[in-house]
């Protein structure tokens, strides 16, 4: 390497190199560009410029780096995909990213095998029978601990904090399995539904490197969760195509592939995809625009229209909400969806930007969701006072209240923000501060509900 006697010039080149590495450029391309910069600098200093002057001129002549990397991307369009999967971090040595690939593949295989371990003890997945209750209760305990392990490794957590993170999973395994649930009991289904929500918080702790309250890590975890959900759906679609072809091709030679698809392909694929999906989300971070905020922008207006149309129709016809079994769950899901839209809109928003039309739209969405929910709650309260509590009704009611409080306060903060009374950062802080509430309630349902309701 030609080094310049001028120490600050070398430092400036190093800074430039660090900056350019953040662009989606290939390693050798950076080296080639750096060589060019050094040649230029040598020529300019020879012509009598000082180091600083030469550096300014040389960098300016190199041109706008964004435009440059766009040109590079156009010349190498295949690399864009590769960067999604392979791009190592700025100063990460190449062998670490290679090791990373191995670790991820190892964990994905481990997750796929873990899901088959109960088969050794006679609990089998078969396409002919219903899914064994053991699997239903423990679904999240196969992939989540391995995903946590991945983040423990990736973030370089210590062994001790790794042990702390193992605690929630151990507790989850205990509470999912010690209770003697009645066959087809409501509480068993509630445990199956709530355990993943409770344990996702533990994954989050590993994700933010155990520092839950600093560095905007929680918002990153929210982003990660949304992107993972999208990636998981995409991988599932691919898996569906694979399944279809497996059936079709083996049927062509008069073989039934159902035992393989139902017993191996789908369960192992579903478990492994959690790890692979997380790895993809981690790897492509900041390379391309995230999908969740885009979907949020797309669907916020549509859901607002839906809610307003629903309210208008109800006011026009005067027909009350007909409380059936699923209605409470349905309105819970509606609130979850609205909270999701608010959360992902917040995650992609610049907190410093002034309010715009989209923020007003969000407020309309939240308010109309609240009104719809109040009507649903009134109808449901009437039913509960008539027929009493069941585990399902209490769980759904609790969730409804939790989401309602979140949205009501969000609406207030939105209104203040729109009238320039407060900053958007407050709303963002409220949303991320609220995150553990969901998991704590879910944990409560898992731990308390079965004994309280007599395992029915």
């Amino acid at each position: 390497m030609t080094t310049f006697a001028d120490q600050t010039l070398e430092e400036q080149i190093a800074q430039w190199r660090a900056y350019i590495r953040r662009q989606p450029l290939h390693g050798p391309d950076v080296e080639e560009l750096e060589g060019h910069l050094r040649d230029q600098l040598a020529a300019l200093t020879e012509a009598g410029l000082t180091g600083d002057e030469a550096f300014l001129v040389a960098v300016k002549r190199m041109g706008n780096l964004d435009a440059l990397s766009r040109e590079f991307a156009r010349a190498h369009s295949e690399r864009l995909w590769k960067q999604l999967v392979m791009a190592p971090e700025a100063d990460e040595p190449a062998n670490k990213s290679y090791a990373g690939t191995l670790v991820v593949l190892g964990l994905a295989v481990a997750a796929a095998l873990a899901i088959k371990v109960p088969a050794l003890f006679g609990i089998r997945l078969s396409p002919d029978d219903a899914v064994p209750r053991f699997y239903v209760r423990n679904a999240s305990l196969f992939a989540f601990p391995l995903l946590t392990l991945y983040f423990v490794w990736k973030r370089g957590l210590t062994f001790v904090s790794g042990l702390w993170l193992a605690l929630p999973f151990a507790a989850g395994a205990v509470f999912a399995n010690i209770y003697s649930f009645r066959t087809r009991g409501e509480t068993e289904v509630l445990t199956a539904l709530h355990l993943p929500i409770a344990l996702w918080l533990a994954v989050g702790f590993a994700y933010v490197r155990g520092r839950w309250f600093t560095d905007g890590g929680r918002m990153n975890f929210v982003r990660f969760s949304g992107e993972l959900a999208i990636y998981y759906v995409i991988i599932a679609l691919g898996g569906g195509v694979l399944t279809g072809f497996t059936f079709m091709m083996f049927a062509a030679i008069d073989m039934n592939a159902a035992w393989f698809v139902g017993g191996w392909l789908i369960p192992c694929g579903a478990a492994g995809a959690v790890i692979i999906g997380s790895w993809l989300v981690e790897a492509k971070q900041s390379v391309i625009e995230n999908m969740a905020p885009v979907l949020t922008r797309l669907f916020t207006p549509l859901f607002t229209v839906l809610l307003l149309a629903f309210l208008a129709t109800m006011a026009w016809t005067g027909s009350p909400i007909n409380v059936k079994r699923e209605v409470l769950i349905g309105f819970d899901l509606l609130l979850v969806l609205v909270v999701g839209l608010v959360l992902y809109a917040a995650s992609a928003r610049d907190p410093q930007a002034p309010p715009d039309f989209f923020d007003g739209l969000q407020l309309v969405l939240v308010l109309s969701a609240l009104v719809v929910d109040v009507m649903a709650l009134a109808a449901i309260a009437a039913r509960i006072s008539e027929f009493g509590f069941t585990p399902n009704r209490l769980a759904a009611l609790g969730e409804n209240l939790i989401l309602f409080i979140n949205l009501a306060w969000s609406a207030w903060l939105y209104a203040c923000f729109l009238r320039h009374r407060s900053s958007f950062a407050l709303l963002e802080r409220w949303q991320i501060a609220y995150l553990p509430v969901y998991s704590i309630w879910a944990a409560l349902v898992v731990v308390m509900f079965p004994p309280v309701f007599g395992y029915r």
Partner: protein
Amino acid sequence: MDMSKDLVAASATPLVLAILAEGDSYGYAIIKRVTELSGGHLQWTDGMLYPVLHRLERQGHVAAKWSASENGRRRKYYRITREGRAQLAAQRQQWQIVDGTLRGIWMKACTA
């Protein structure tokens, strides 16, 4: 004189190929040669040369090789290939047609 961006971009390929037809070279030297040949009228943003070179490499018009330079650093040298020479000949014909056409009309404008 400021050249139009499109014209600079369009002339980049034949120019690079022609310079490499003179002999193997590397990025910085190619830029220097362009400035020299055009009398400083053809100013490229330095970085933009590299995507052009890489595109030509993918199309097989040039071949690249990393080797040591006189100052001990690794440097990527480019060499024109047989396809590159054919491409250069084709481009040259096209440019001559453009050049001839413009010349014809401008001569008429002068004499009229």
